[in-house]
């Protein structure tokens, strides 16, 4: 079995999939870090210009000013009604930071590494996983090599299981790459420290109020681990669903296409049809697990961490069941 997994990993590496993922990560993270540095400086400059102090000396004043700005926006008659709950949650969060002496404007490699994953978890990370998983079975069907591996003295389920195991292992590597590249690249802009700075987590959004009773402060590195742990969970789910599609369709481009449109479509749905109840059972809508940690406002009302994790787990288990049953029974006609 180990040798079978080794075979699969070997094939993925030789197809240069990991290299592609590495390239995409490097380019995107660099652009992201540069952009963040830029916009942070502008925010600081803007706020500092208005109240006449520098950010580094007194971040508390900046924070207070930000709260005032947000409150003004809340009371403005021109604001969109549906944006207001999110703004309210944001204000309360800033207030919490202020009371507990945590600087939200501070940036560091540690913070960037975490934030990058928080921003990628619902679309960018899944896309990378699809690049890896999309052709893992359909690729063999498309070039005919499936006949080669299914006519050995090895049962079909073992062949499929080794592919799945290889995929789950490579997902860890993708996350490690993302973490290392983020830390390395963003350190150039923000300095390499910040791993022990406190981060508040445990916010709960109830209706449009923020509940801060359960909030605890954890060091940044621990928070980053939690975020990457959730990201791995998301990778497993997206990976297995993508794996299933790869088993069901016979061409790599169809497999990747189906998954990409599902993901992007799902993100649309969660924005524009949040009152349509059934969308909350789609896996794409439940990928923003890290938002629960940070206490951001949820666009679809009434879902929480437990709900999302349950939905995602059900999807993963169902996808695996379908993959194995179909693969075991399928006639290979290619």
């Amino acid at each position, binding site marked *: 079995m180990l040798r079978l997994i080794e075979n699969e990993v070997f094939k993925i590496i*030789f197809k240069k999939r990991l290299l592609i993922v590495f390239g995409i990560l490097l380019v995107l993270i660099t652009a992201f870090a540069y952009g963040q540095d830029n916009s942070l400086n502008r925010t600081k400059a803007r706020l500092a210009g208005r109240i006449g102090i520098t950010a580094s000396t007194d971040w508390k004043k900046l924070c207070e000013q930000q709260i005032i700005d947000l409150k003004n926006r809340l009371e403005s008659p021109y604001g969109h009604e549906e944006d207001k709950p999110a703004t309210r949650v944001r204000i309360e969060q800033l207030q919490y930071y202020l009371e507990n002496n945590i600087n939200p404007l501070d940036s560091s490699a540690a913070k960037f590494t975490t934030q990058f994953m928080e921003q990628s978890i619902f679309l960018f990370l899944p896309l990378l996983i699809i690049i890896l998983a999309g052709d893992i079975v359909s690729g063999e069907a498309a070039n005919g090599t499936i006949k080669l591996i299914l006519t050995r003295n090895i049962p079909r389920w073992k062949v499929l299981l080794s592919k799945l195991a290889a995929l789950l292992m490579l997902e860890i590597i993708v996350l490690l790459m993302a973490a290392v590249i983020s830390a390395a690249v963003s350190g150039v802009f923000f300095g390499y420290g910040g791993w022990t700075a406190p981060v508040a987590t445990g916010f709960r959004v109830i209706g449009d109020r923020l509940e801060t009773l359960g909030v605890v402060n954890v060091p940044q590195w621990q928070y980053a681990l939690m975020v990457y742990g959730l990201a791995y969970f998301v990778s497993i789910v997206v990976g297995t669903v993508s794996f299933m599609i790869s088993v069901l369709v016979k061409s790599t481009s169809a497999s990747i296409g189906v998954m990409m449109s599902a993901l992007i479509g799902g993100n649309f749905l969660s924005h524009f049809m949040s009152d349509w109840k059934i969308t909350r059972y789609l896996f794409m809508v439940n990928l923003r697990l890290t938002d629960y940690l940070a206490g951001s406002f949820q666009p679809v009302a009434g879902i929480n961490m437990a709900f999302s994790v349950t939905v995602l787990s059900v999807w993963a288990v169902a996808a695996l069941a379908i993959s194995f049953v179909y693969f075991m029974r399928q006639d290979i006609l290619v």
Partner: protein
Amino acid sequence: MQPPVLELVDLKKNIKNKEIIRGINLTLGPAEILGFLGPNGAGKTTTIRMIVGLIRPTAGSVKICGYSIADDFIRAMSNVGCIIESPEMYKFLSGMENLRQLSNMDKRITRQRVDEVVELVGLQKRIEDKVSTYSLGMRQRLGIAQALLCRPKLLILDEPVNGLDPAGITEFRNLIRRLAHEEEMAIFVSSHLLSEAQLMCDQVAIIRQGSIVKTATVKDILNTETVEWRLDNPVKAARLLKEKWGIEALRENGNTITAAVGENRLELINQVFVNEGIELRYSIPRQNTLEDMFLDLTEGDEIA
């Protein structure tokens, strides 16, 4: 008694309610080479896929060395090496890496065995190159190499000489015959090159519209002689053939008739014709080829 290497019992396959294979029975013993012949769409590849477990039969069974492919896949497939249609390999890997992938899947295959088969198919010089740079003939050789890795008792080859040059074909034929005779391998070859099958195989099975229409040894086919006569009274001659020897004659154009006669009877028949007052202009014995038989059997078929 040892079970036959390959045994097909009433094998059937329906795809979308259409009968593709309608009950195939076949046995193949050690050291036998069977040519599996048929026009396009007759069901050759479907049958082969059922033998190696890529397709599940609708009814009937496949047994390899006595193990059923449906119930005992692992033990059955431990005895099989195969190329199904064109030999697909991983193009982004080298020939050697391809073989390593496959040897990783079977504990019995040693590194030494891998080198051995590479030498057997004559690929030593290019084995470290990427498969994407191989010619069709070289891929074919690599395909044969991977099929031989596990020292199979049954070798299944689907159109193996496609893409080989004439020298390659001869070399391949010698290899196949050697494997059958020296290693007692049973070899199942599908082909549409009839002249090639005639040279390579001991027996042939001809499949047409999903059923086997004829099995015969190549020797028998070559020994059946047809004779063509040109004479003044073909009706009478045909009647005589039928009455005296029970031979059905075919009336061709004008004064020519042809009939399949057994060995050594031509002189006797001619003698009788002359005695009966038929004016005989000539009689020519013609040796049958596999191709003649094949065309006879599959005449007028359209691809289903």
